[in-house]
């Protein structure tokens, strides 16, 4: 096996989380939910949080800045318990954008105490078929906001180790 082949196989086997859904709607309607202020605000979570978009420029290199605000009482209480603000300024950008086909958003993960800021990219692809559209979201669970939140609940050190291992990938 060549080095390249091995690297490609390693990359293919990286623990990506792929989540997909098929929605009976027009492709443009799905696209709007990712690429317009009101569209994005209407669904982007997580549960118990709402977002307020300050800038959304749907073009390659365009910024996506929003506040993620705890609004359910349970989440507000949880954030307070952890001594964290109930609103968090989030910085992201569109690193890829092929209208109605594919987009990639990179978030800057900069809110973890003691963890150097790093990037987390998610890829979204749209596959229309008849009157439906299949939407495929590919996430690297080692580099996402939710996962790092989980890591703050006691997994941080292991994940950092794991990250390094995946990053260096020995043959």
């Amino acid at each position, binding site marked *: *096996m060549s080095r390249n082949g091995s690297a490609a196989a390693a990359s293919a086997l990286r623990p990506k989380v792929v989540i997909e859904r098929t929605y009976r709607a027009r492709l443009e309607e799905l696209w*709007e939910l990712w690429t317009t202020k009101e569209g994005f605000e209407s669904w982007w979570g997580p549960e118990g949080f709402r977002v307020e978009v300050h800038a959304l420029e749907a073009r390659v290199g365009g910024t996506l800045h929003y506040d993620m605000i705890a609004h359910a009482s349970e989440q507000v209480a949880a954030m307070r318990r952890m001594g964290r603000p109930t609103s968090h300024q989030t910085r992201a950008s569109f690193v890829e954008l092929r209208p109605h086909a594919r987009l990639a958003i990179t978030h800057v993960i900069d809110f973890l105490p003691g963890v150097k800021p790093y990037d987390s990219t998610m890829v979204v692809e749209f596959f229309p078929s008849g009157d439906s559209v299949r939407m495929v979201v590919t996430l690297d669970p080692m580099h996402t906001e939710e996962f790092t939140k989980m890591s703050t609940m006691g997994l941080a050190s292991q994940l950092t180790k794991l990250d390094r291992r995946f990053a260096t990938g020995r043959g």
Partner: protein
Amino acid sequence: MHIDGFEILSDPTRRLVVEALRHGEQQVSDIVAQAGIHQSGVSRHLRILHEAGFVARRPDGQRRLYRLQAAPFRELDAWLAPYRGLWEARLDRFGAALEKRRKARGITHKEKRT
């Protein structure tokens, strides 16, 4: 902690061995042919995978046959489940938002999961 499973699979060569075994029970020489790794390497990684519970083996005459075991993969999956759940919930909201917009525009639709 299931992180051990990730550590076991963090080795690219071991992942190649696992890939080869996805096609079913095999002997070392078949894995060597598929993965393109030297036999000594395959044997070493099979031993590690076996010790970690990822691979089971049984004798078959002169040969030893290796196959994948589901349990550790299920554990890895369980470890990722809460994370996946967050995103399932997020895509539920995506569907609901889509539905709401369509209703506002006088169109209805049903989301279906795949």
